[in-house]
């Protein structure tokens, strides 16, 4: 049994919970997020020769980044940064969260998801910005919790990154 702790980080309302709701195995209700501040889900990803169980810690995303509990990230081997493609400010929030995590626990593999790709008409992130980030070697996916576009790819990518 190979499992990896993965933390989903992102600002409030970026769609983390929606992403996992459709595509992962879950037993806990969303009220956990507001009570305990975290919700645990599992995504099994079949890689060549092995299956990795990604234990996804969906941390409550709040507007106030300061209230984010870094301690939840302890022991994580990878991150899923989620940005709301219709709100440019959420990109900065995601990057700030990543910086805080890396400051605490060192660098770790991550994928950056620009969510809500189905809302093309309200899209607020320019392709140039995305390409700039891709230049840094980051793994970036434009996902849609609604259509499921690229969600599996993103998790598969992260799984192969953490399961080396």
């Amino acid at each position: 049994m190979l499992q990896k702790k993965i933390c989903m980080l992102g600002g409030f309302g970026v769609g983390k919970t929606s992403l996992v709701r459709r595509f992962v195995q879950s037993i806990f209700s969303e009220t956990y997020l507001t009570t305990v501040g975290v919700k645990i889900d599992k995504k099994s990803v079949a890689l060549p020769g092995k299956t990795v169980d990604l234990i996804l810690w969906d941390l409550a995303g709040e507007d106030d980044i300061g209230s984010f509990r870094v301690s939840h990230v302890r022991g994580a081997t990878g991150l899923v940064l989620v940005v709301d493609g219709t709100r440019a400010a959420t990109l900065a929030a995601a990057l700030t969260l990543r910086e805080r995590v890396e400051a605490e626990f060192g660098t770790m593999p991550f994928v950056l998801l620009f969510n809500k790709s189905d809302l093309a008409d309200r899209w607020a992130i320019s392709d140039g910005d995305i390409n700039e980030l891709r230049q840094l070697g980051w793994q970036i996916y434009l996902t849609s919790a609604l259509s499921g576009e690229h969600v599996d790819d993103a998790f598969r990518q992260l799984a192969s990154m953490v399961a080396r």
Partner: protein
Amino acid sequence: MTSTVDPISLPQRTASNDTEIDREALARLLIEIARNVDPDYRARFDGVPTADPRMETLRQLLVSREISELSRVTHLLDEPEQLAAAVGDVLSSAAARAPHVQLGEALAPAVERAVQRSIQKSPRTLTDILYPVFLPAIRKSIGEKIDQTFQSLNETLRHIFTWHGLKWRFESWRTGASFSEVVLKHSLVYRVEHVFLISRNSGLLIAHVAADNATSEDPQLISSMLSAIQDFVKDSFNEKEQSSLDTIRFGDLRLWSEVGQFATLVSVIRGNPPEELHEIVRDVLLRIHEECSQALGEFDGDSSQLAGVEAQLQTCVELKQEESNQGFPWLVVVAVLLLLIPAGGWFLLSWQSGQRWQAYVSQLEIQPGIIVAEQKVRYGQFYISGLRDPLGADPQSLLSGTQVDPARVHSQWKFYQSLEPEFVLKRLTASLAPPDTVRLSIVKDRIVAEGEASAAWISQAHAAAQQLSAGGPVFDISGVRDVSLEEREAERWQAYVSRLETQPGIIVAEQNIRDGQFYIAGLRDPLGTDPQSLLSGTQVDPARVHSQWRFYQSLEPEFVLKRLAASLYPPDTVRLSIVKDRIVAEGEAPDTWIDQARAAARQLSAGGPEFDISKVRDVSPEARAAEHWQYYVSRLEAQPGIIVAQQTERGGHFYISGLRDPLAADPQALLHGTQIDPARVHSQWQFYQSLDPKFVVKRLEASLTPPKSVLLSIIQGRIVVVGEAPANWINRARAAADQLSADGVVLDISQLHELNLAELNDLRAAIQATDIFFYSGKVVPGPEQTPVLDRLADQIKEFAESAHKSGVTARFMLTGHSDATGRETANASISAARAETVRALLNKRGVAPELLLVRGAGTFEPLVPENSQTGSSTNRRVSITVNLD
């Protein structure tokens, strides 16, 4: 220029020869360069002097900076202060970069010693350091203990009056466990349903084991969630790092978590677990940490390394306590019954015993001669007091049969004399002792005596009657007749007659009294008692007795015995006696007497008692001889060292064969005094060695010839050798003991000590140190050896005498030696001759020749190597050795 070499003086001083600059090579190199620059240069210079000061200048120009740097570093290394400062600057970062395992191993001994020292110096410091670590653990442990105690108390109280309680009490008594332990064991019904081992760092599940039938959601998610909740609580309430959420309770479901260094063990328990379960779970966690410490520390989500821990967790899941039925509180009922039954029983018994007591008292009250003054019952005890006549019934004996416990009766009786007629009668009977002819009776409260009595008794009775008149009943003796003198005489005569009738050998045929005269006639045996002699002492006047007796032969056994004794003249060896009306003869007699006795027995058979002569042995000469022979044989058989194999008697001759130890008694000699004719005895004895300790001792004494200081004795079948003996004798004794042990005979030589010849040892050494020297080719020692010989003779005599006193024989070996000059055979004979000469000379000085042994050693035992004149003269000698036997 020589004054400018100072800056390089240091490296020059410290450099060794091989690192010194090869100035010649340098000069050649420079010339080579110059030649390349200017080809004509060669024409002007053939070479460069090695001591050219310019070389030095050049060198300074080239490497002066390195030289000064080197000198600084060397200086740094040589100065401990500076070196320490330099190392100190980099120590922390060096330690950080060092491989941790190796650094840890290198530092461990030093750190251990330092801690040890610190504790020795001031334990307080370390206690202060560890205090924050230990305190929470101790607090938790005490808390659990208190919980455990309360739990135990609660459960004990709950079950104290139930039927289970009784059963558990019995179980506690049977198993020796405390009652509360047993109660907990039965009352705490629980089951460990799940056990999760969770990585402390990531919250990832390391292992999960569930009990049969226990269901749960995905354990991986649960474990992560559990650690998230831990974090949540910790963060929410600002709890310190080392604390942890250890119990979560939901209905009858409990989550217990035990935190280890790398992993947390969460057990999900349904029911009411005992507090001890904490310890069990903690033990499992500790064991897992011990066994897989490294794998746990390095856990990164791959649990394949930790497959073994599931077996450990399985032990937790197997923990449970089944529910047992709880029922009606029978114990209460039983307890109440147990209390009521004895109480009711007690009331019944005390009422019953009171009734019995009253029955007894009323029985006493109607008893004549008993007056009950007072009686009462108090606390189950009975008290009674009063008067009783000693002749009345015993109140104590009346108790038997009343079922009143005599132990609870306290009586106080005083004696008195009752005047009731029956008691007066009793007392009169006791005091007057009326003859058989007088009868006392009570007639209408009067005591009446009737019958015949002597005058004396009548007057006695009169006196008693007068005494009684004062208040007592009337004693009427008017009915007693005075008996006449004649009657008394007749009585005496009848007594005489009846005595005669019981006499053996007397038959009374007729007797009567007529006119004051007594007549008697009958038969009497002359061997019986004389009837006349029996008259004396009967108070019957012999003059008035007229007897007519005829003689007859009584067939009563004692008379027959007397007659037989008179007629048969039995020899002294025969004894006649009466056994149950039969006459029995016992003993020995010649056949002639036996024939006689048999004839007498036949005669007797007609009506008389039986005469049994079967127990008289025929003692004819042959029979006696056979008896003697048997006696002899039995004597032989009892002899130690003699084994009789066969013996028989045939035609007046006796044949015997068997084994005998030569040291045993001679069977022939034992014949003496047995009245057996030796000529008729034919013996065939074969010799053998008896293993009887007595014979073994005899043989040992003959073969070992023990010295006087040794004593052989037999103690409980073992031969024990006690005393002192020389070593070689002890060895022989030990050899003998070994041989004997094979035959099963114990020869104990443990109390045998080596003869202490200390005083002799000096003398022995002196004798053995003496050498008699000879001139070359001579067999007689020179005159200068005379004092040596004199002294030697005295010493030998003294030694031989002392040894003899100790029971040892000393022998002296005189060994002649020669030097190596000349032929070997000549030397051999000259050496023997020298020894012979010394023997003769010693003999002349009074030494017994049998103590002296002689041998010639030739050149074979030289005292010193034969390579000098002195050597030769030293080797021409006779040496003496002492042997003890």
